[in-house]
């Protein structure tokens, strides 16, 4: 994997990362999973995306079912948080009026990434105009993974990193321990850290001219 770097495509600036086939497949899979979690259609399967795009009423209704109360899934609640924890009426009204639109926006951004990851070749090319939307989608994915990993504080994130290091040392035989305690958690943690690293490289590109 190579992080995002600036490149010029004629007169326009683009950000390009390089992923091998397995990395692309893993990231595309988690992008699609988060899209489903937020009420989107299964990317690339069954549903003709063009039809969904052309039917705003359907999209609106889809988000509406769950727009009255906080989502039950804590990962979805991290992506669509309660806007007024100390005022139920304000929180409900905010959710009712904003959640369908936020869900649509977030699913649209994920779908764009999913399509880019399903193009041929090792390069992941992001036009300058799409860079922040991509960074925002990477944030949503990382929020979901962080919730699944139980990352609630900065210390939790530090512990996760140490846990992954220990697992890595165990598998490379630096210590005698040859059993990784929770391989699924370590795998998710590694995916989380890889996406963090990719997003960080994308932000260097986005902020290259910030003053």
């Amino acid at each position: 994997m190579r992080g995002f770097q600036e490149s010029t495509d004629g007169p326009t600036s683009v950000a390009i990362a390089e992923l091998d086939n397995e990395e692309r497949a893993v990231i595309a899979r988690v992008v699609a999973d988060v899209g489903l979690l937020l009420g989107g259609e299964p990317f690339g399967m069954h549903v003709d995306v063009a039809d969904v795009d052309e039917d705003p009423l359907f999209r609106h209704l889809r988000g509406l079912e769950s727009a009255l109360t906080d989502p039950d899934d804590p990962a979805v609640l991290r992506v669509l948080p309660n806007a007024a924890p100390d005022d139920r009426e304000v929180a409900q009204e905010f959710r009712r009026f904003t959640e369908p639109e936020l869900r649509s926006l977030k699913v649209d951004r994920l779908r764009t990434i999913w399509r880019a990851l399903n193009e041929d070749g090792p390069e992941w090319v992001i036009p300058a105009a799409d860079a922040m939307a991509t960074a925002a989608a990477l944030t949503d994915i990382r929020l979901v993974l962080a919730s699944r990993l139980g990352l609630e504080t900065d210390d939790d994130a530090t512990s996760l990193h140490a846990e992954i290091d220990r697992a890595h040392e165990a598998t490379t035989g630096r210590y005698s321990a040859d059993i990784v305690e929770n391989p699924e958690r370590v795998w998710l943690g590694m995916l989380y850290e890889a996406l963090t690293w990719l997003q960080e490289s994308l932000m260097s590109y986005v902020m290259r001219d910030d003053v």
Partner: protein
Amino acid sequence: MRPYPEGVSTQPLSAIDVDVTTRTDDVWVTLVWNDPVNLMSYVTHVFQSYFGWTRDEAERRMREVHELGKTVVSTGGRETMEVDVQAMHSYGLWATLTRSGQ
């Protein structure tokens, strides 16, 4: 068009009406809270691009979130704060609104 059927509301309509007439008098704030996921660079850029702050100011506010746990990013009427909170949520930042002074 109302975005959803009246019967779905858990609030009596009269209560909503009263709220709409009084809300403009109140001062509200938008808070952004610390979380372990959002990158410092990303939060800085969101603050800079959305609120129009300089990079220095955006970084100072980002550090306040990171070190103190939260910061007030905007102050105004409830509807304006709702717009700001929605924008922050669109970026995956953990934002809330509350009446000023609470």
